[in-house]
Protein backbone atom coordinates (compact mmCIF):
# COMPACT_ATOMS: atom_id res chain seq x y z
CA UNK A 1 0.00 0.00 0.00
CA UNK A 2 1.37 3.40 -0.90
CA UNK A 3 1.74 6.28 1.52
CA UNK A 4 -0.83 9.03 1.85
CA UNK A 5 1.32 11.75 0.39
CA UNK A 6 2.18 9.57 -2.57
CA UNK A 7 -1.49 8.77 -3.08
CA UNK A 8 -2.42 12.44 -2.92
CA UNK A 9 0.18 13.27 -5.55
CA UNK A 10 -1.03 10.41 -7.73
CA UNK A 11 -4.66 11.49 -7.42
CA UNK A 12 -3.97 15.17 -8.06
CA UNK A 13 -1.93 14.35 -11.13
CA UNK A 14 -4.30 11.90 -12.76
CA UNK A 15 -7.81 12.34 -11.43
CA UNK A 16 -8.94 14.87 -14.04
CA UNK A 17 -7.85 12.62 -16.88
CA UNK A 18 -9.44 9.52 -15.36
CA UNK A 19 -12.68 11.41 -14.72
CA UNK A 20 -12.69 12.67 -18.29
CA UNK A 21 -11.88 9.18 -19.50
CA UNK A 22 -14.73 7.37 -17.72
CA UNK A 23 -17.14 10.11 -18.83
CA UNK A 24 -15.93 9.47 -22.36
CA UNK A 25 -16.52 5.74 -21.92
CA UNK A 26 -20.12 6.52 -20.98
CA UNK A 27 -20.43 6.91 -17.21
CA UNK A 28 -22.73 9.63 -15.90
CA UNK A 29 -21.32 12.24 -13.53
CA UNK A 30 -22.12 10.46 -10.27
CA UNK A 31 -20.88 7.13 -11.53
CA UNK A 32 -17.76 8.78 -12.89
CA UNK A 33 -16.83 10.07 -9.43
CA UNK A 34 -17.27 6.60 -7.96
CA UNK A 35 -15.27 5.02 -10.75
CA UNK A 36 -12.42 7.51 -10.27
CA UNK A 37 -12.41 6.72 -6.56
CA UNK A 38 -12.37 2.97 -7.16
CA UNK A 39 -9.54 3.32 -9.70
CA UNK A 40 -7.31 5.07 -7.22
CA UNK A 41 -8.23 2.72 -4.40
CA UNK A 42 -7.06 -0.18 -6.55
CA UNK A 43 -3.85 1.70 -7.24
CA UNK A 44 -3.38 2.44 -3.56
CA UNK A 45 -3.95 -1.13 -2.41
CA UNK A 46 -2.00 -2.96 -5.07
CA UNK A 47 0.77 -0.32 -5.29
CA UNK A 48 2.31 -1.79 -8.42
CA UNK A 49 5.78 -0.86 -9.62
CA UNK A 50 4.21 0.97 -12.56
CA UNK A 51 3.28 3.77 -10.14
CA UNK A 52 6.97 4.64 -9.96
CA UNK A 53 7.36 4.81 -13.72
CA UNK A 54 6.97 7.78 -16.03
CA UNK A 55 3.70 9.61 -16.30
CA UNK A 56 2.48 8.11 -19.60
CA UNK A 57 2.92 4.53 -18.34
CA UNK A 58 1.23 5.36 -15.04
CA UNK A 59 -1.66 7.02 -16.84
CA UNK A 60 -2.09 4.06 -19.20
CA UNK A 61 -2.20 1.66 -16.27
CA UNK A 62 -4.73 3.79 -14.42
CA UNK A 63 -6.89 3.94 -17.52
CA UNK A 64 -6.80 0.17 -17.79
CA UNK A 65 -7.97 -0.08 -14.19
CA UNK A 66 -10.67 2.51 -14.90
CA UNK A 67 -11.85 0.54 -17.91
CA UNK A 68 -12.22 -2.59 -15.82
CA UNK A 69 -14.08 -0.68 -13.14
CA UNK A 70 -16.36 0.75 -15.81
CA UNK A 71 -16.99 -2.75 -17.18
CA UNK A 72 -17.95 -4.01 -13.69
CA UNK A 73 -20.21 -1.03 -13.28
CA UNK A 74 -21.93 -1.71 -16.61
CA UNK A 75 -22.46 -5.36 -15.71
CA UNK A 76 -23.87 -4.52 -12.28
CA UNK A 77 -26.40 -2.25 -13.92
CA UNK A 78 -27.71 -4.91 -16.27
CA UNK A 79 -29.05 -8.39 -15.81
CA UNK A 80 -26.81 -10.56 -17.94
CA UNK A 81 -23.10 -10.71 -18.71
CA UNK A 82 -21.79 -8.70 -21.65
CA UNK A 83 -18.83 -9.96 -23.59
CA UNK A 84 -18.82 -7.46 -26.41
CA UNK A 85 -18.07 -4.45 -24.25
CA UNK A 86 -14.42 -5.24 -23.61
CA UNK A 87 -13.68 -4.99 -27.34
CA UNK A 88 -15.59 -1.72 -27.51
CA UNK A 89 -13.59 -0.35 -24.61
CA UNK A 90 -10.34 -1.40 -26.22
CA UNK A 91 -11.32 0.53 -29.31
CA UNK A 92 -12.22 3.51 -27.17
CA UNK A 93 -8.81 3.33 -25.51
CA UNK A 94 -7.10 3.31 -28.92
CA UNK A 95 -8.93 6.48 -29.98
CA UNK A 96 -8.14 8.12 -26.63
CA UNK A 97 -4.48 7.22 -26.81
CA UNK A 98 -3.85 7.72 -30.52
CA UNK A 99 -6.00 10.77 -31.22
CA UNK A 100 -6.57 12.56 -27.93
CA UNK A 101 -3.34 12.02 -26.01
CA UNK A 102 -0.98 11.60 -28.96
CA UNK A 103 1.95 10.95 -26.62
CA UNK A 104 1.05 14.02 -24.60
CA UNK A 105 -1.75 14.85 -22.22
CA UNK A 106 -4.48 15.89 -24.63
CA UNK A 107 -3.55 19.54 -24.30
CA UNK A 108 -3.18 19.99 -28.07
CA UNK A 109 -6.50 18.31 -28.73
CA UNK A 110 -8.33 20.56 -26.29
CA UNK A 111 -6.61 23.60 -27.81
CA UNK A 112 -7.61 22.49 -31.29
CA UNK A 113 -11.19 22.03 -30.07
CA UNK A 114 -11.25 25.55 -28.64
CA UNK A 115 -9.91 26.99 -31.90
CA UNK A 116 -12.39 25.02 -34.00
CA UNK A 117 -15.29 26.10 -31.77
CA UNK A 118 -14.43 29.72 -32.51
CA UNK A 119 -14.65 29.01 -36.22
CA UNK A 120 -18.13 27.56 -36.07
CA UNK A 121 -20.93 29.62 -37.56
CA UNK A 122 -23.18 31.39 -35.11
CA UNK A 123 -26.13 29.01 -35.38
CA UNK A 124 -23.92 25.98 -34.75
CA UNK A 125 -22.39 27.57 -31.67
CA UNK A 126 -25.86 28.46 -30.51
CA UNK A 127 -26.97 24.84 -30.77
CA UNK A 128 -23.91 23.66 -28.86
CA UNK A 129 -24.51 26.21 -26.12
CA UNK A 130 -28.09 25.06 -25.69
CA UNK A 131 -26.98 21.45 -25.42
CA UNK A 132 -23.68 21.58 -23.56
CA UNK A 133 -23.76 24.84 -21.63
CA UNK A 134 -27.42 25.00 -20.69
CA UNK A 135 -28.01 21.25 -20.66
CA UNK A 136 -31.16 21.39 -22.77
CA UNK A 137 -32.59 18.05 -23.83
CA UNK A 138 -33.22 17.32 -27.49
CA UNK A 139 -36.91 17.80 -26.91
CA UNK A 140 -36.36 21.25 -25.38
CA UNK A 141 -34.02 22.21 -28.18
CA UNK A 142 -36.55 21.02 -30.75
CA UNK A 143 -39.13 23.36 -29.24
CA UNK A 144 -36.74 26.31 -29.12
CA UNK A 145 -35.35 25.84 -32.60
CA UNK A 146 -38.61 24.78 -34.22
CA UNK A 147 -37.19 21.48 -35.36
CA UNK A 148 -37.99 17.81 -34.78
CA UNK A 149 -36.05 15.84 -32.18
CA UNK A 150 -34.50 13.73 -34.90
CA UNK A 151 -33.52 16.91 -36.66
CA UNK A 152 -31.79 18.11 -33.48
CA UNK A 153 -29.99 14.80 -33.14
CA UNK A 154 -28.79 15.04 -36.74
CA UNK A 155 -27.82 18.68 -36.31
CA UNK A 156 -25.69 18.01 -33.23
CA UNK A 157 -24.06 15.03 -34.82
CA UNK A 158 -23.28 17.05 -37.92
CA UNK A 159 -21.74 19.84 -35.87
CA UNK A 160 -19.61 17.35 -33.96
CA UNK A 161 -18.47 15.84 -37.27
CA UNK A 162 -17.45 19.28 -38.50
CA UNK A 163 -15.60 19.88 -35.26
CA UNK A 164 -13.95 16.48 -35.43
CA UNK A 165 -12.76 17.08 -38.99
CA UNK A 166 -11.47 20.53 -38.05
CA UNK A 167 -9.58 19.14 -35.07
CA UNK A 168 -8.02 16.36 -37.07
CA UNK A 169 -6.94 18.81 -39.76
CA UNK A 170 -5.33 21.03 -37.15
CA UNK A 171 -3.55 18.13 -35.55
CA UNK A 172 -2.54 16.57 -38.85
CA UNK A 173 -4.41 13.39 -38.04
CA UNK A 174 -6.03 12.94 -41.47
CA UNK A 175 -3.12 11.01 -42.91
CA UNK A 176 -2.86 8.61 -40.03
CA UNK A 177 -6.55 7.88 -39.47
Amino acid at each position, binding site marked *: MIGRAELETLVRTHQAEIYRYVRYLGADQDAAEDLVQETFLVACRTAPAVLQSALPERAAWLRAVARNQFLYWCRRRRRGPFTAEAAVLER*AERVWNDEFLRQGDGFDYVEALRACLKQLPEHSRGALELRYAQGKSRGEMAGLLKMSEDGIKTLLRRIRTVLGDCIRRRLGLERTS
Partner: protein
Amino acid sequence: MSDERDQLLEALLCEAFGRDAPPDLTERICRRAYAVSVWHNPWLLGTALVTAAALIAVVVSLSLPAPAPAPQQLVQPSDTRPPQQPAPPTPGDHSTSGEPAVYPAPSATGDFQVVEGGAPRRGATLLTGLGGAQLHLGGYCQVRLSPHSRVRIHGQEREEEIQLQEGQIECDVAREHGRFAVRTPLGKVSVTGTSFQVQVRKGGEDMTRSMYIKVLAGTVLVASAWGEMALAAGQEHEQPAQGTLTGVVTAKTERSISVRIDESNEVKQFIPNWIGGLPKDGGGLDKQMLHTIRETPVGSRVRVQWMMLEHLRVVGLEVLERPRGDRPEGEHRENTGNEPEKKDGGPHAVGHREGVLVGNVTGKGEAWIEVQGEGQEKPTRYTPRWIGGMPKDGGGLDKHMLEIFRGLNVGNRIRLTWVVDERPRAVAIEKLH
Protein backbone atom coordinates in the same frame (compact mmCIF):
# COMPACT_ATOMS: atom_id res chain seq x y z
CA MET B 1 -17.20 9.88 -37.71
CA SER B 2 -16.70 6.79 -35.56
CA ASP B 3 -18.78 6.37 -32.42
CA GLU B 4 -15.70 6.61 -30.25
CA ARG B 5 -14.65 9.93 -31.76
CA ASP B 6 -18.17 11.25 -31.40
CA GLN B 7 -18.26 10.16 -27.76
CA LEU B 8 -14.89 11.81 -27.19
CA LEU B 9 -16.19 15.08 -28.54
CA GLU B 10 -19.37 14.81 -26.47
CA ALA B 11 -17.35 14.43 -23.31
CA LEU B 12 -14.97 17.26 -24.16
CA LEU B 13 -17.78 19.59 -25.22
CA CYS B 14 -19.50 19.15 -21.85
CA GLU B 15 -16.26 20.15 -20.19
CA ALA B 16 -15.50 22.95 -22.67
CA PHE B 17 -18.88 24.55 -22.03
CA GLY B 18 -18.38 24.40 -18.28
CA ARG B 19 -20.95 21.82 -17.28
CA ASP B 20 -18.66 18.96 -16.45
CA ALA B 21 -15.44 20.13 -14.84
CA PRO B 22 -13.48 17.24 -13.29
CA PRO B 23 -14.07 17.43 -9.52
CA ASP B 24 -11.34 17.31 -6.89
CA LEU B 25 -11.77 13.95 -5.19
CA THR B 26 -8.42 13.88 -3.38
CA GLU B 27 -9.73 14.14 0.18
CA ARG B 28 -12.55 11.71 -0.43
CA ILE B 29 -10.23 9.13 -1.96
CA CYS B 30 -7.60 9.45 0.74
CA ARG B 31 -10.18 9.18 3.53
CA ARG B 32 -11.63 6.10 1.95
CA ALA B 33 -8.24 4.57 1.22
CA TYR B 34 -6.93 4.75 4.75
CA ALA B 35 -10.21 4.17 6.55
CA VAL B 36 -10.91 1.01 4.56
CA SER B 37 -7.39 -0.28 4.70
CA VAL B 38 -7.09 0.03 8.46
CA TRP B 39 -10.50 -1.18 9.52
CA HIS B 40 -10.56 -4.08 7.13
CA ASN B 41 -7.11 -5.35 7.92
CA PRO B 42 -6.58 -6.49 11.49
CA TRP B 43 -2.83 -6.67 11.09
CA LEU B 44 -2.68 -3.11 9.86
CA LEU B 45 -5.10 -2.04 12.54
CA GLY B 46 -2.86 -3.50 15.17
CA THR B 47 0.24 -1.99 13.66
CA ALA B 48 -1.43 1.40 13.41
CA LEU B 49 -2.43 1.33 17.07
CA VAL B 50 1.02 0.22 18.18
CA THR B 51 2.62 2.92 16.03
CA ALA B 52 0.28 5.55 17.44
CA ALA B 53 1.04 4.44 20.96
CA ALA B 54 4.78 4.46 20.34
CA LEU B 55 4.63 7.93 18.87
CA ILE B 56 2.64 9.17 21.81
CA ALA B 57 5.18 7.58 24.10
CA VAL B 58 8.08 9.24 22.33
CA VAL B 59 6.44 12.65 22.29
CA VAL B 60 5.46 12.47 25.92
CA SER B 61 8.91 11.36 26.98
CA LEU B 62 10.46 14.29 25.19
CA SER B 63 8.12 16.85 26.69
CA LEU B 64 7.79 15.62 30.27
CA PRO B 65 10.34 14.43 32.75
CA ALA B 66 8.05 11.54 33.80
CA PRO B 67 8.44 8.14 32.13
CA ALA B 68 6.37 7.43 29.00
CA PRO B 69 3.06 5.57 29.49
CA ALA B 70 2.95 1.80 28.98
CA PRO B 71 2.26 0.54 25.45
CA GLN B 72 -1.26 -0.44 24.38
CA GLN B 73 -2.78 -3.85 25.17
CA LEU B 74 -2.27 -5.12 21.65
CA VAL B 75 1.48 -5.33 22.20
CA GLN B 76 2.47 -8.68 23.74
CA PRO B 77 3.99 -8.24 27.21
CA SER B 78 6.95 -10.29 26.14
CA ASP B 79 7.54 -8.16 23.06
CA THR B 80 10.91 -6.56 23.60
CA ARG B 81 11.18 -5.00 20.18
CA PRO B 82 11.75 -1.25 20.20
CA PRO B 83 8.77 0.93 19.30
CA GLN B 84 8.08 0.93 15.61
CA GLN B 85 9.99 3.61 13.79
CA PRO B 86 7.85 6.44 12.44
CA ALA B 87 7.34 6.44 8.70
CA PRO B 88 10.03 8.13 6.64
CA PRO B 89 9.44 11.84 6.20
CA THR B 90 7.01 12.55 3.42
CA PRO B 91 7.62 15.46 1.08
CA GLY B 92 7.23 18.65 3.02
CA ASP B 93 7.14 16.92 6.40
CA HIS B 94 10.09 18.17 8.36
CA SER B 95 9.15 16.94 11.78
CA THR B 96 11.22 13.84 12.25
CA SER B 97 11.74 12.50 15.72
CA GLY B 98 12.87 15.59 17.53
CA GLU B 99 15.72 16.66 15.22
CA PRO B 100 15.60 20.04 13.43
CA ALA B 101 14.63 19.52 9.81
CA VAL B 102 16.72 20.84 6.92
CA TYR B 103 14.63 22.61 4.32
CA PRO B 104 15.47 20.89 1.03
CA ALA B 105 17.27 22.92 -1.61
CA PRO B 106 15.78 23.04 -5.11
CA SER B 107 16.58 19.95 -7.13
CA ALA B 108 15.73 18.64 -10.55
CA THR B 109 15.74 15.40 -12.49
CA GLY B 110 15.37 14.59 -16.17
CA ASP B 111 16.60 16.15 -19.38
CA PHE B 112 17.67 19.71 -18.60
CA GLN B 113 20.61 22.07 -18.41
CA VAL B 114 21.26 24.93 -16.05
CA VAL B 115 21.86 27.95 -18.23
CA GLU B 116 24.23 29.57 -15.73
CA GLY B 117 26.01 26.30 -15.10
CA GLY B 118 26.21 24.30 -11.87
CA ALA B 119 23.35 22.67 -10.03
CA PRO B 120 19.75 23.87 -9.91
CA ARG B 121 19.49 26.60 -7.27
CA ARG B 122 17.63 29.80 -6.55
CA GLY B 123 18.35 32.33 -9.28
CA ALA B 124 19.28 29.66 -11.83
CA THR B 125 17.48 29.10 -15.12
CA LEU B 126 16.60 25.61 -16.29
CA LEU B 127 16.18 24.80 -19.94
CA THR B 128 14.65 21.40 -20.70
CA GLY B 129 15.48 19.15 -23.61
CA LEU B 130 13.35 16.68 -25.50
CA GLY B 131 12.66 14.53 -22.46
CA GLY B 132 11.37 17.22 -20.15
CA ALA B 133 12.31 17.42 -16.47
CA GLN B 134 10.98 17.49 -12.94
CA LEU B 135 11.73 20.28 -10.50
CA HIS B 136 11.37 19.68 -6.74
CA LEU B 137 10.95 22.67 -4.45
CA GLY B 138 10.74 22.66 -0.68
CA GLY B 139 9.68 19.03 -0.66
CA TYR B 140 6.08 20.13 -1.31
CA CYS B 141 6.11 21.44 -4.89
CA GLN B 142 6.56 19.07 -7.80
CA VAL B 143 6.84 20.83 -11.14
CA ARG B 144 6.89 18.85 -14.37
CA LEU B 145 8.54 20.80 -17.16
CA SER B 146 7.56 19.95 -20.71
CA PRO B 147 10.22 19.69 -23.41
CA HIS B 148 11.74 22.99 -24.52
CA SER B 149 10.57 24.89 -21.48
CA ARG B 150 12.53 27.60 -19.71
CA VAL B 151 12.08 28.24 -16.00
CA ARG B 152 13.92 30.43 -13.49
CA ILE B 153 13.86 29.47 -9.80
CA HIS B 154 13.02 32.27 -7.36
CA GLY B 155 11.28 32.31 -4.00
CA GLN B 156 12.40 31.28 -0.54
CA GLU B 157 11.61 28.71 2.11
CA ARG B 158 7.89 27.98 2.29
CA GLU B 159 7.26 30.62 -0.38
CA GLU B 160 8.50 28.90 -3.48
CA GLU B 161 8.24 30.73 -6.75
CA ILE B 162 9.34 30.11 -10.30
CA GLN B 163 9.25 32.20 -13.41
CA LEU B 164 8.00 30.42 -16.50
CA GLN B 165 9.70 32.19 -19.39
CA GLU B 166 8.70 29.78 -22.11
CA GLY B 167 6.93 26.45 -22.54
CA GLN B 168 4.61 24.51 -20.28
CA ILE B 169 4.67 23.19 -16.75
CA GLU B 170 2.36 21.09 -14.63
CA CYS B 171 2.44 21.65 -10.89
CA ASP B 172 1.41 19.60 -7.87
CA VAL B 173 1.49 21.42 -4.57
CA ALA B 174 0.76 20.25 -1.04
CA ARG B 175 -0.99 23.29 0.35
CA GLU B 176 -0.32 22.70 3.99
CA HIS B 177 3.45 23.04 3.63
CA GLY B 178 3.80 26.46 2.08
CA ARG B 179 2.97 28.81 -0.73
CA PHE B 180 3.84 28.52 -4.38
CA ALA B 181 3.49 30.85 -7.32
CA VAL B 182 4.32 30.83 -11.00
CA ARG B 183 5.24 34.11 -12.63
CA THR B 184 5.12 34.63 -16.35
CA PRO B 185 5.76 37.73 -18.42
CA LEU B 186 1.99 38.18 -18.47
CA GLY B 187 0.98 37.63 -14.90
CA LYS B 188 1.25 35.51 -11.78
CA VAL B 189 -0.53 32.31 -10.83
CA SER B 190 -0.76 31.80 -7.07
CA VAL B 191 -1.51 28.41 -5.74
CA THR B 192 -3.95 27.51 -3.03
CA GLY B 193 -3.04 23.84 -2.97
CA THR B 194 -3.67 22.31 -6.29
CA SER B 195 -2.59 20.68 -9.49
CA PHE B 196 -2.48 22.87 -12.56
CA GLN B 197 -0.78 23.61 -15.85
CA VAL B 198 0.67 26.89 -17.01
CA GLN B 199 1.85 27.52 -20.53
CA VAL B 200 3.50 30.56 -22.00
CA ARG B 201 2.48 30.37 -25.61
CA LYS B 202 4.75 32.18 -27.95
CA GLY B 203 3.58 33.22 -31.36
CA GLY B 204 5.84 34.37 -34.14
CA GLU B 205 6.54 37.60 -32.30
CA ASP B 206 6.58 38.76 -28.71
CA MET B 207 3.30 40.60 -29.17
CA THR B 208 1.45 37.34 -29.72
CA ARG B 209 2.57 35.62 -26.50
CA SER B 210 -0.15 34.56 -24.14
CA MET B 211 -0.36 32.72 -20.84
CA TYR B 212 -2.62 29.71 -20.65
CA ILE B 213 -3.63 28.19 -17.32
CA LYS B 214 -5.57 25.00 -16.83
CA VAL B 215 -6.51 23.90 -13.34
CA LEU B 216 -6.55 20.17 -12.78
CA ALA B 217 -7.54 20.22 -9.11
CA GLY B 218 -8.01 22.81 -6.38
CA THR B 219 -7.93 26.51 -7.20
CA VAL B 220 -5.46 29.08 -8.42
CA LEU B 221 -5.51 32.85 -8.38
CA VAL B 222 -4.43 34.55 -11.59
CA ALA B 223 -3.19 38.12 -11.28
CA SER B 224 -2.21 40.32 -14.18
CA ALA B 225 -2.49 43.86 -15.40
CA TRP B 226 -6.08 43.00 -16.26
CA GLY B 227 -7.00 42.23 -12.67
CA GLU B 228 -7.38 39.06 -10.60
CA MET B 229 -9.48 35.99 -11.07
CA ALA B 230 -9.81 32.64 -9.37
CA LEU B 231 -9.92 29.43 -11.37
CA ALA B 232 -11.35 26.20 -10.02
CA ALA B 233 -10.67 22.61 -11.04
CA GLY B 234 -11.52 21.94 -14.65
CA GLN B 235 -11.44 25.61 -15.58
CA GLU B 236 -8.97 27.13 -17.93
CA HIS B 237 -8.05 30.64 -18.90
CA GLU B 238 -5.96 32.27 -21.56
CA GLN B 239 -4.34 35.49 -20.48
CA PRO B 240 -3.68 37.51 -23.62
CA ALA B 241 -0.47 39.33 -24.31
CA GLN B 242 -0.82 43.06 -23.63
CA GLY B 243 1.25 46.17 -23.25
CA THR B 244 1.78 49.83 -24.09
CA LEU B 245 3.82 51.26 -26.92
CA THR B 246 4.49 54.57 -28.65
CA GLY B 247 4.81 55.21 -32.35
CA VAL B 248 3.57 57.11 -35.36
CA VAL B 249 0.28 56.47 -37.12
CA THR B 250 1.07 55.48 -40.70
CA ALA B 251 -2.39 54.59 -41.97
CA LYS B 252 -5.89 53.94 -40.82
CA THR B 253 -9.25 52.68 -42.02
CA GLU B 254 -12.74 52.86 -40.64
CA ARG B 255 -11.93 50.02 -38.26
CA SER B 256 -8.21 49.97 -37.77
CA ILE B 257 -5.13 52.01 -37.19
CA SER B 258 -1.58 51.17 -38.27
CA VAL B 259 1.32 52.36 -36.14
CA ARG B 260 5.07 52.30 -36.75
CA ILE B 261 6.38 51.25 -33.35
CA ASP B 262 9.24 53.34 -31.97
CA GLU B 263 11.10 50.43 -30.38
CA SER B 264 11.09 48.00 -33.27
CA ASN B 265 10.35 50.25 -36.27
CA GLU B 266 7.77 47.65 -37.30
CA VAL B 267 4.33 48.62 -38.48
CA LYS B 268 1.44 46.88 -36.74
CA GLN B 269 -2.26 47.17 -37.43
CA PHE B 270 -4.64 47.36 -34.45
CA ILE B 271 -8.39 47.04 -34.33
CA PRO B 272 -10.71 47.94 -31.45
CA ASN B 273 -11.90 45.38 -28.95
CA TRP B 274 -15.19 43.57 -29.46
CA ILE B 275 -17.81 44.69 -26.95
CA GLY B 276 -20.93 42.68 -26.20
CA GLY B 277 -22.02 39.40 -27.72
CA LEU B 278 -23.15 38.54 -31.19
CA PRO B 279 -24.01 41.35 -33.62
CA LYS B 280 -27.67 40.38 -33.42
CA ASP B 281 -27.49 41.04 -29.68
CA GLY B 282 -25.91 44.45 -30.14
CA GLY B 283 -22.29 43.38 -30.01
CA GLY B 284 -19.66 45.12 -32.13
CA LEU B 285 -16.33 46.91 -32.20
CA ASP B 286 -15.84 49.41 -29.38
CA LYS B 287 -17.65 52.50 -30.68
CA GLN B 288 -15.70 54.86 -28.45
CA MET B 289 -12.42 53.57 -29.87
CA LEU B 290 -13.73 53.77 -33.44
CA HIS B 291 -14.47 57.43 -32.80
CA THR B 292 -11.00 57.99 -31.31
CA ILE B 293 -9.42 56.37 -34.35
CA ARG B 294 -11.44 58.64 -36.62
CA GLU B 295 -10.24 61.68 -34.70
CA THR B 296 -6.56 60.66 -34.82
CA PRO B 297 -4.73 62.05 -37.87
CA VAL B 298 -2.29 59.93 -39.82
CA GLY B 299 1.19 61.03 -38.89
CA SER B 300 0.33 61.61 -35.22
CA ARG B 301 2.66 60.34 -32.53
CA VAL B 302 0.53 58.17 -30.28
CA ARG B 303 0.63 56.00 -27.18
CA VAL B 304 -1.26 52.75 -27.73
CA GLN B 305 -2.46 50.36 -25.05
CA TRP B 306 -2.92 47.01 -26.73
CA MET B 307 -3.81 43.42 -26.13
CA MET B 308 -3.62 40.30 -28.28
CA LEU B 309 -7.01 38.65 -28.60
CA GLU B 310 -7.13 36.83 -31.92
CA HIS B 311 -5.94 40.12 -33.44
CA LEU B 312 -3.93 42.98 -32.06
CA ARG B 313 -6.50 45.17 -30.30
CA VAL B 314 -6.21 48.82 -29.38
CA VAL B 315 -7.78 49.37 -25.95
CA GLY B 316 -6.33 52.83 -25.31
CA LEU B 317 -5.17 55.50 -27.76
CA GLU B 318 -3.62 58.83 -26.78
CA VAL B 319 -2.30 61.43 -29.23
CA LEU B 320 1.05 62.70 -27.98
CA GLU B 321 1.82 64.95 -30.91
CA ARG B 322 -0.20 65.85 -33.97
CA PRO B 323 1.48 65.89 -37.39
CA ARG B 324 2.73 69.15 -38.88
CA GLY B 325 0.17 70.87 -41.06
CA ASP B 326 -2.51 68.70 -39.62
CA ARG B 327 -5.84 69.17 -41.37
CA PRO B 328 -8.92 69.18 -39.16
CA GLU B 329 -10.44 65.73 -39.13
CA GLY B 330 -13.85 67.15 -39.92
CA GLU B 331 -14.98 64.26 -42.00
CA HIS B 332 -14.41 60.57 -41.95
CA ARG B 333 -11.34 59.39 -43.90
CA GLU B 334 -10.53 55.91 -45.13
CA ASN B 335 -7.56 54.19 -46.65
CA THR B 336 -8.04 50.68 -47.87
CA GLY B 337 -5.82 50.49 -50.95
CA ASN B 338 -8.57 48.27 -52.38
CA GLU B 339 -10.33 48.44 -55.70
CA PRO B 340 -12.42 51.61 -55.91
CA GLU B 341 -16.11 51.60 -55.46
CA LYS B 342 -18.27 52.39 -58.41
CA LYS B 343 -18.83 56.11 -59.02
CA ASP B 344 -22.32 57.21 -58.26
CA GLY B 345 -23.32 60.45 -60.03
CA GLY B 346 -20.10 62.59 -59.79
CA PRO B 347 -16.97 63.39 -57.71
CA HIS B 348 -18.93 64.53 -54.65
CA ALA B 349 -21.52 61.82 -54.70
CA VAL B 350 -22.04 59.35 -51.87
CA GLY B 351 -19.61 56.45 -52.14
CA HIS B 352 -16.45 58.46 -52.66
CA ARG B 353 -13.70 57.74 -50.23
CA GLU B 354 -10.47 59.52 -49.41
CA GLY B 355 -7.55 59.11 -47.11
CA VAL B 356 -3.92 59.74 -46.33
CA LEU B 357 -1.15 57.18 -46.21
CA VAL B 358 2.59 57.01 -45.80
CA GLY B 359 4.46 54.57 -48.02
CA ASN B 360 7.09 53.90 -50.65
CA VAL B 361 6.89 54.34 -54.40
CA THR B 362 7.23 50.88 -55.90
CA GLY B 363 6.64 51.69 -59.56
CA LYS B 364 5.76 54.50 -61.93
CA GLY B 365 4.67 55.16 -65.45
CA GLU B 366 3.88 58.19 -67.54
CA ALA B 367 0.62 58.90 -65.82
CA TRP B 368 0.66 56.76 -62.70
CA ILE B 369 2.61 55.78 -59.65
CA GLU B 370 2.38 52.63 -57.59
CA VAL B 371 2.65 53.02 -53.82
CA GLN B 372 2.96 50.40 -51.08
CA GLY B 373 1.33 51.97 -48.04
CA GLU B 374 2.61 50.90 -44.63
CA GLY B 375 0.47 48.16 -43.16
CA GLN B 376 -0.93 47.28 -46.58
CA GLU B 377 -0.47 43.89 -48.13
CA LYS B 378 0.10 45.01 -51.71
CA PRO B 379 0.86 48.24 -53.57
CA THR B 380 -1.86 50.31 -55.22
CA ARG B 381 -1.70 52.25 -58.45
CA TYR B 382 -2.68 55.93 -58.36
CA THR B 383 -3.33 58.30 -61.23
CA PRO B 384 -3.85 62.07 -61.08
CA ARG B 385 -7.37 63.42 -60.88
CA TRP B 386 -9.18 64.39 -64.01
CA ILE B 387 -9.49 68.14 -64.15
CA GLY B 388 -12.09 69.81 -66.37
CA GLY B 389 -14.55 68.16 -68.69
CA MET B 390 -14.07 66.27 -71.89
CA PRO B 391 -10.69 66.40 -73.62
CA LYS B 392 -12.21 68.41 -76.47
CA ASP B 393 -13.14 70.99 -73.84
CA GLY B 394 -9.62 71.11 -72.39
CA GLY B 395 -10.09 68.50 -69.73
CA GLY B 396 -7.31 66.08 -68.79
CA LEU B 397 -5.23 64.62 -66.02
CA ASP B 398 -4.02 67.08 -63.41
CA LYS B 399 -0.84 68.46 -64.99
CA HIS B 400 0.58 69.61 -61.66
CA MET B 401 0.29 66.09 -60.30
CA LEU B 402 1.83 64.63 -63.47
CA GLU B 403 4.80 66.92 -62.86
CA ILE B 404 5.10 65.63 -59.31
CA PHE B 405 4.96 62.06 -60.60
CA ARG B 406 7.84 62.76 -62.95
CA GLY B 407 9.95 64.02 -60.04
CA LEU B 408 9.45 60.85 -58.03
CA ASN B 409 11.71 57.81 -58.12
CA VAL B 410 11.03 54.24 -57.16
CA GLY B 411 11.92 53.90 -53.51
CA ASN B 412 10.92 57.42 -52.52
CA ARG B 413 9.04 57.66 -49.29
CA ILE B 414 5.95 59.86 -49.55
CA ARG B 415 2.85 61.00 -47.74
CA LEU B 416 0.02 60.60 -50.22
CA THR B 417 -3.45 62.12 -50.01
CA TRP B 418 -5.77 60.17 -52.23
CA VAL B 419 -9.39 59.94 -53.24
CA VAL B 420 -11.34 57.23 -55.02
CA ASP B 421 -12.94 58.57 -58.15
CA GLU B 422 -13.55 55.60 -60.43
CA ARG B 423 -10.04 54.56 -59.42
CA PRO B 424 -7.55 55.68 -56.74
CA ARG B 425 -6.35 59.20 -57.52
CA ALA B 426 -3.41 61.06 -56.04
CA VAL B 427 -4.55 64.43 -54.73
CA ALA B 428 -1.45 65.62 -52.87
CA ILE B 429 2.03 64.24 -52.40
CA GLU B 430 4.67 65.20 -49.86
CA LYS B 431 8.11 63.71 -50.28
CA LEU B 432 9.49 62.47 -46.96
CA HIS B 433 13.16 61.85 -46.12
